[in-house]
């Protein structure tokens, strides 16, 4: 009996503490004093074969503003065609293109659960300007990809509504090695492309790493793997 009274009183005290802590939290909206997302309404892209987007649907992600403030748990979709990040505002049910000027970068988890990190960087080569680069491997020398999709002419075809069209979205990805002091260096996603970034003597070491790890650099995944292994062995990169 005494035990029951004691347990009840402890439960009451704990309940009181919990209610007090809850009272301390205001009924304010969670984002009342956070930075607001700025942008414009998404104007639909030409409806042709292929996809202008990197992902098939909106995926939950996080954006980082220029001042370092972050907003997470928002639905994001990267437009490879226009190099813009679109978010779906659930309150007003609108697809909004976030101002590129306001962002430092963004990230989201794709359908496979892989974290995709994008960073806004100034590209000083042909068609200079701020671009969103996907960071494939970060470090002193980063491996970046500009996931551009272009609208290319193709053989005429009839779309779903029967209209005759001769345009389609074609991926035209560009891979770069980037360091803050040396800038960008274009790299081909192939074994020879990777080897070309090393001295003759170092190429032997690189090839040895490939052999040791049974790597054949043929696609993006194997290229990233190879690059990370080379980075670990601290072989000098020429660019």
């Amino acid at each position, binding site marked *: 009996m005494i035990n029951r009274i004691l347990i009840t009183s*402890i439960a009451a005290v704990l309940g009181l503490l919990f209610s007090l802590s809850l009272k301390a939290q205001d009924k304010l909206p969670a984002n009342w004093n956070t930075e607001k997302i700025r942008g414009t309404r998404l104007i639909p892209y030409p409806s042709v074969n292929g996809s202008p987007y990197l992902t098939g649907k909106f995926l939950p992600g996080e954006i980082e503003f220029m001042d370092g403030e972050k907003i997470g748990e928002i639905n994001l979709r990267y437009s490879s065609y226009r190099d813009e990040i679109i978010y779906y*505002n659930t309150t007003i049910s609108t697809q909004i293109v976030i101002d590129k000027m306001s962002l430092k970068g963004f990230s989201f988890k794709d359908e496979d659960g892989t974290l995709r990190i994008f960073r806004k960087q100034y590209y000083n080569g042909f068609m200079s300007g701020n671009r969103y680069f996907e960071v494939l491997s970060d470090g002193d020398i980063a491996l970046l990809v500009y996931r551009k999709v272009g609208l290319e002419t193709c053989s005429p075809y009839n779309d779903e509504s029967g209209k005759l069209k001769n345009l389609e979205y074609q991926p035209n990805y560009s891979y770069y090695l980037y360091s803050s002091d040396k800038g960008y260096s274009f790299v081909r996603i192939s074994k020879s492309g990777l080897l070309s970034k090393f001295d003759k003597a170092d190429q032997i070491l690189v090839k040895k790493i490939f052999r040791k790890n049974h790597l054949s650099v043929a696609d993006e995944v194997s290229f990233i793997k190879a690059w990370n292994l080379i980075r670990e062995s601290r072989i000098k990169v020429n660019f």
Partner: protein
Amino acid sequence: MKRKIKTLLLFLLIVFAGKAQEQLSISLFTDRDVYISGETLLLKVDVPATEKSGIVSIDLINQTGKKITGILKEIVNHEADGYIYLPDSLTSGCYLLRTSVKTSNIQTIKALYISNRFNGLPLTNSGLQPAGITPVKEVQNIGLQVKGIQNHYKTREKVHTDLQIPADLLENIDGNLLVNVSEIIPEFKTPEFTLNSNRQKSTLVDHEGIILEGTVTELRTAKPFKNALVYLSIPDSLPGFQYYITSDDGRFYFQIKNYYGKIPVVIQCYSRGQEQLLKIALTDQDSLKHLMPMFEQQSFPPDLRKKVERNADALTYRKVFNQQEITVQPSPVIRRDIYPFYGIPTNVVDPQLFIDLPNFTEISRELLPGVKFRAFNRIPTLQVLNSAQFNYFTDPPLVLFDGIPTRDLNFIKEMGSKDIDKIEICQNERFFGDLSFQGILAIYSTKADYSRIPATDNLIKLNLDVLQPQAVLNDLPSQEVNNPDLRQVLLWKPLLKPGQVIPIEFITSDIQGTFRMIVRGKTKDGSNFYKEQIFEVN
């Protein structure tokens, strides 16, 4: 089982007891106890390490609790220092310097005596002083030593001292030290005490900036209005903008961060959907009028009148010859934005580059691409072209006048080329948070005079005191030998880094009298310590 329960109860008791002990108060120090109106008061505040608030408010209040002036300071490493200009118009009497934070009900108060520069002390030779209070007790640290200081100095003599801090104390010091050398009246000391106010403790913590809060009510019924759209704008070259949508209680909250000094702020509200007449009011932060200590009559020491008269003359001289007591440091340059909140404009038009046009109708017709401004039947209308769809938006755009949103187009219609510096137009649908605007028309006037916007029931215009910038004491005397040096504060270093031996130097002024050198600090357990050394200058 019983033992376990007993242990748990004991633990809870300890937790409660610990929580009760957490209520440490702010400590306040001023350079002097007696001031002349027109002087500058220097102050330092030490805040308990447990304090969550990032801003401390320091107000000068009179004996009835009325606020005369006040400042807001950013708390950095649990400390803040600032200054208050004492208005020349203050009548002679006792005033209270009150420090408070939003998250605590405990106020630390320091009593001061301020004598009017022109009238001096009252003829009765007595004044009111707080009574029935428990002064804050501070312990003089015996270990802390001021080496090389003498009991007597001549005027304009260079003083060298070494502050020696024992190793055990040095390890235990939290934050910076304060060193102050100023003239004192030994027989007249004003108390520092704490008061527990009945102010409703805010649950909003002002970590980074000032929090402005208020209520929107319906004008006719005075009931809180739900779903009102409240805008806060700060006119600037890149205007500041925030919004809040009220809920059932009609309350709104804004945080203003990274602004220093005095800034113009406009807060206005609108109903969303059906037009309703609304009233907006800010919550009065100062609700301590009825929580004042008792006062009792006390006679002044015999020397006080003479010293106050001399100091008043000294102040007048300093004012006539423009000898500034402090130098205000420039506010930190903070780049809040790299582009306006309404985006990069599609078009920017400077009407002054074109032929002089008499009104906005003419300007819109002749100079503004994609802007349709009509003023038929005295009800002006405005539409902006949607460049993506090649048609005009059906809803009016967001019209900004010097960065302030306005729905009244009547005062714009009379504006001619001479009144407008530039016009920015956004010909697309813009989004800011959950708000959408069908085009933007931002008008920047030549005079940046937003007084054209009338203050109404739903619009408040404020000149808001935000965070005070840092200031340093001008502790070097006048270089001209024939120019009297009438400084009463010889040294004020509120953020002195602790060390085993700290050399301290200052030069005495032409003021003769009793001076005090005080070193103050705080230990990691939250208690304050000090060491003072009195010397005469003659």
